[in-house]
């Protein structure tokens, strides 16, 4: 456990030692506070996209609903469950890293990535099905938003694969193992999950 670089006490992050019960660890920001800038900024940016979508949706809700009926809520639910499960394994990966159980952390990171791949496959399959059915990016306004939001989210997922790759690379060698880094990148992966949860409810369920 000694070789694990401790989460660096970042300035200005308010890493105050808590005066709580003795057993509880000190309150620290998970990962680098810098990553939280990205998380909060990106979620705000997506909120702007969502707001534009919801605002325009009501102008012609009939057409939107007709196109929305082409989506399968079951498939959306499956995607959501896949990403939620991947987040769970990512959290276990972080916990294992903290406990120094690096083999277990590695395994969890791999499972996270595989669940991400399953999501990717499911999404691309859905896209192909829709495009074959004549519902492409340019088909109508709903599908503009659908392909834009799912596409830009998928791009975040692809970046997430790079992030998992870095985590696995770091965990592989004792010299590179850094708890700070694993926590930081885990936060990114959860953000991908978080954004999908919002996209799912807004594209598949909202009426």
């Amino acid at each position, binding site marked *: 456990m000694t070789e694990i670089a401790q989460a660096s006490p970042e300035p200005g992050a308010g890493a105050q030692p808590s005066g709580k019960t003795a057993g509880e660890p000190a309150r620290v920001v998970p990962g*680098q*506070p*810098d*990553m939280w*800038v*990205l998380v909060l*900024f*990106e979620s705000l*940016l997506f909120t*702007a*996209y969502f707001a*534009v979508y919801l605002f*325009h949706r009501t102008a012609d809700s009939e057409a939107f609903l007709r196109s929305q009926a082409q989506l399968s809520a079951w498939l959306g639910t499956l995607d959501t469950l896949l990403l939620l499960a991947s987040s769970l394994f990512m959290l276990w990966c972080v916990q294992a890293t903290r406990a120094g159980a690096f083999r277990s952390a590695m395994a969890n990171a791999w499972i996270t990535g595989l669940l991400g791949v399953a999501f990717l496959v499911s999404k691309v399959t859905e896209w192909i099905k829709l495009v074959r059915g004549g519902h492409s*990016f*340019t088909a109508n*306004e709903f599908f*503009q938003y659908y392909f*834009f939001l799912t596409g*830009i989210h998928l*791009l975040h997922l692809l*970046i997430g694969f790079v992030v998992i790759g870095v985590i696995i690379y770091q965990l592989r060698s004792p010299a590179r193992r850094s708890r700070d880094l694993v926590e930081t990148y885990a936060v990114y992966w959860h953000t991908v999950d978080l954004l999908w949860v919002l996209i799912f409810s807004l594209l598949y369920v909202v009426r």
Partner: protein
Amino acid sequence: MTGETAEPARSGSPLTRIAWHCRNNPKRELWFAWYTTVIFYNIFFIVFFPVTHAQPPPHPYWSDALVANWFGHNRGGLLIGFGIIFTIAGATAPQNALIAYSMRRMSVSRVFPYAYLVMYSLSAIPGLLLLCVVLSVGALRPGRDPAQLHWLYDFGFLSYTGTMGIFLIGSLVWMLAILLDKNRVMPKWFGYLNLCNALTEVVVAPAWIFHAGVFAWNGLISWWVDMVVFGIYTGAFLMQLRNLIRREDFGDGPLPGLVKKPEAMAATLAGTAP
């Protein structure tokens, strides 16, 4: 040019203080690049928004007649405004040079600054100057065929809005350099902000496809949201470059050529932290 050096106490006017800094400030090259960048962005804003009305962009779905009308209305503004841009567009170079210099200070290969420098220098042509040339041609001659004006109009705005790859890859290069850097030249959050800026270049891609709606070249998402992100990003990198220059410590020692020991100078110049 705030007094971070030991400026001799003088009760001079701001002009004499500026003159003193131009002669004596050891960081004057860096400050020159920084101030040129700030002034360039200000002029750029004035030219593109109130003078030429090229921003916020007019509608992509206009008919030939409306486009001809737009050229007719903005003729003087376009020609004067883009004349100003043709005069000062070279002022983008110090900005790219300064950013490349920030990467030179990082513990990364020189591939990064050079790649960034070349990419962003290239970007000025399709991303800025082609729009200016093409819209100037449209404004040049009253009575040109409206269909031709429409072609020039599409060419200009698509080239300007649709130049994505250079900024995308350029931002990613800078991001990677910041994240790999061990000298703490720039904060990591700014590296991540580069990623946000890079992603807006993907968001703008549908402008090549749609004539109307939120993804068109003047759309709510492809233009307005992206513009806000770009504004935040530009503000952030100007502040970060300012901090970088402030932290530089050249002292006020002699110029490099006068020192005999090369390794001492190399340390001053490269300034790499241990």
